[in-house]
């Protein structure tokens, strides 16, 4: 198989944070029970002037800054999100203009709950493989919504990552990918509704755990690998507990999960979640390291990726953009009252 894979990457996480304990106190819940139960200490919050377009642009600019790819050579941009600022009008065009990739390129916005970004990677891989484009830019980014008082409020956060996909200057080869998809209504947001709804515990075993395990097993069976062949594993992370639990179910260890598990510190960045996790792994990965990634999107489906880091990662100008650990460390806390203002939860006439 041709050496198709990741040419560069960039992540972005807004600076504002709110602690789960502050949210718990607001709703009269026991902070220790909530923080311990969900495994989330704090989550990122988008400021008033941040949305999926700005987060996507930041991540895309960081990805371009790290590599020697001329934006004019990017033949496609796909942005996966469930919080695109416009219902009609693409986010991808804004990103294209901002990084100087317009006008000779394909653009579309994707939505598949939390896995639209990894679906964008698969599309870019196919276009590169078929020589329709030289480079593709796949982005997963969200400013996810949660109704006040809903359990989702402790997790729903903001962030995203961008990946340049190509077959030249590849820093990490994507050896194989596959998906597992069913119609499983575990979490959804109806047209015109401000907040999503979910099926409580139904989002667990028949949804998250079934799709991730089935997809991961299918990919490992296809290529003949086992969990011990990998240095790192990244799973979608709706809370701090599920990724470690699904890892255990598949035979991965907590050590393999650790570098890509960011939910405890930034919350669930939805379409960004597994992709920011992968960016965090690439921040520290060495040539020949092998990475396994499985995303999950409600509705429902998973995308799995088998990735091998190449020698070219040493040539990437990683320091031209912040590492994920730096994005996490750069933070400023807000209280729940400020949060309600930034997340448009207040009502006035």
């Amino acid at each position: 198989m041709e050496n198709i894979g990741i040419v560069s990457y960039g992540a972005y996480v807004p600076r504002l944070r709110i602690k789960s304990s502050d949210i718990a106190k607001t709703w009269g819940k026991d902070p220790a029970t909530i923080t311990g139960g969900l495994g989330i200490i704090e989550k990122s919050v988008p400021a008033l002037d941040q949305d999926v377009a700005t987060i996507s642009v930041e991540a895309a600019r960081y990805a371009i800054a790290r590599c020697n790819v001329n934006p004019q050579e990017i033949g496609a941009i796909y942005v996966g999100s469930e919080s695109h600022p416009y219902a009609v009008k693409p986010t991808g065009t804004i990103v294209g203009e901002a990084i100087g990739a317009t006008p000779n390129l394909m653009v579309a916005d994707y939505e598949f709950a939390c896995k639209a970004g990894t679906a964008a990677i698969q599309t870019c891989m196919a276009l590169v493989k078929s020589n329709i484009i030289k480079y593709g830019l796949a982005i997963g980014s969200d400013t996810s919504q949660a109704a006040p008082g809903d359990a989702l409020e402790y997790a729903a956060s903001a962030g995203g990552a961008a990946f340049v996909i190509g077959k030249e200057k590849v820093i990490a080869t994507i050896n194989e990918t596959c998906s597992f998809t069913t119609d499983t209504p575990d979490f959804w947001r109806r047209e015109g509704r401000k907040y999503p709804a979910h099926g409580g515990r139904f989002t667990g075993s028949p949804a998250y755990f079934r799709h991730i395990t089935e997809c991961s097993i299918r990919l490992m069976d296809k290529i003949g690998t086992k969990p011990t062949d990998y240095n790192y594993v990244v799973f979608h992370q709706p809370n701090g507990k599920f990724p470690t639990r699904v890892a255990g179910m598949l035979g991965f260890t907590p050590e393999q999960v650790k570098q890509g598990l960011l939910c405890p510190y930034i919350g669930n960045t939805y379409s960004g979640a597994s992709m920011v996790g992968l960016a965090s792994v690439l921040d520290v990965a060495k040539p020949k390291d092998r990475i396994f990634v499985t995303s999950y999107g409600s509705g429902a489906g998973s995308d799995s990726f088998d990735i091998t880091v190449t020698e070219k990662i040493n040539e990437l100008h990683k320091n031209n953009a912040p590492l994920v650990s730096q994005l996490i460390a750069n933070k400023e806390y807000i209280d729940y009252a400020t949060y309600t203002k930034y997340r448009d939860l207040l009502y006035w006439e």
Partner: protein
Amino acid sequence: MRDVAIIGIGVTKFGELWDKSFRNLIAEAGAKAIIDSGISGNEIDALYIGSMSAGRFVGQEHVGALVADSSGFTHLHIPSTRVEAACASGGLAFRQAYMSVASATHDIVVVGGIEKMTDVVESEATNILAMGLDQEWESFFGVTFPGVYAMIATKHMHDYGTTREQLAQVAVKNHANGALNPNAQFKKAIPLENVIKAPIIASPLGMLDCSPLSDGAAAVVICAADLAKKYTQKPIKIIGSGQASDMFPVHGREKICTFQSTVHAAKKAYKQANIEPKDIDLAEVHDCFTIAEILAIEDLGFVKKGEGGKAIENKITTLDGSLPVNTSGGLKAKGHPIGATGISQIAEIVMQLRGQADKRQVKDAKIGLTHNVGASGATCVVHILEAM
């Protein structure tokens, strides 16, 4: 009236059964009961089904005929009747089936109970359950099920000195029993402090004082007692059956800490069985909330009014106590798929009287009682069973 015996029982697992539909569940319970009884399908004269709100929970009414058809009895063209009395639907269906055999209208009847509750969101389930209350005098003003029982609990604490810990001990006991029941929704013992620290639903009742939303089904096969030995070596005779009603909304009752429906249904059942409360070896009572079990053991005459809390505290009703109550885990831990509950209580007592209750077996159990309450006590059905 002729004697009637139970010759087969079948229970599905209770819980959030997302991969089983309404018709899968009742067919599974029915098939298990029929296999257990040793009858052939062609011998069945009639079906009775207890279900509270299939219409609101799964959008399906006319479930009597549906159950007959989906259980494979289409060609028999037997009568199949759905019975509804809120949470007492199962117990009442059993009583209807019992009377049809006792009156010699039928010889062999299968009676099932079912509810599939987790296909709707929790707030909708709460609204559906509140339909068992008085819509004009209770629900209209915002009272929910936990709300009614919370008021009763508060009054019971005020009048009789029942404590928060005593309420919690009901849940602790029933979870300990549920841990021994392979079909229970919660097979996990819980410590007292977890019950007390759980989030408040309606003060003083917390989350662990309340029975859960459940999917599940149960079925039993009954026949004329003189036919029973043809099918089984261990038939269980129905020696008492009582049903009573009470003022519908709680606020109109003279005393809200006494369910007159329970008192009267029990009186009728004891009279028919010609026994007294002290003759009962074990009971499955309607613990939809922890306070409900305390009311039940008082109103059934096991202890004096006001002494239910103390009885729980003194461990009279634990598995090794003098009167084990809710050995199945009760509604609290076994689960409470509304229509199935009354039938599953019968199945538990039958298992105990047959000596088949494994780790939760009560020694020398001869006579068992079931107590199934509709909503906040406007209906009650009591049955007394004895090993033949």
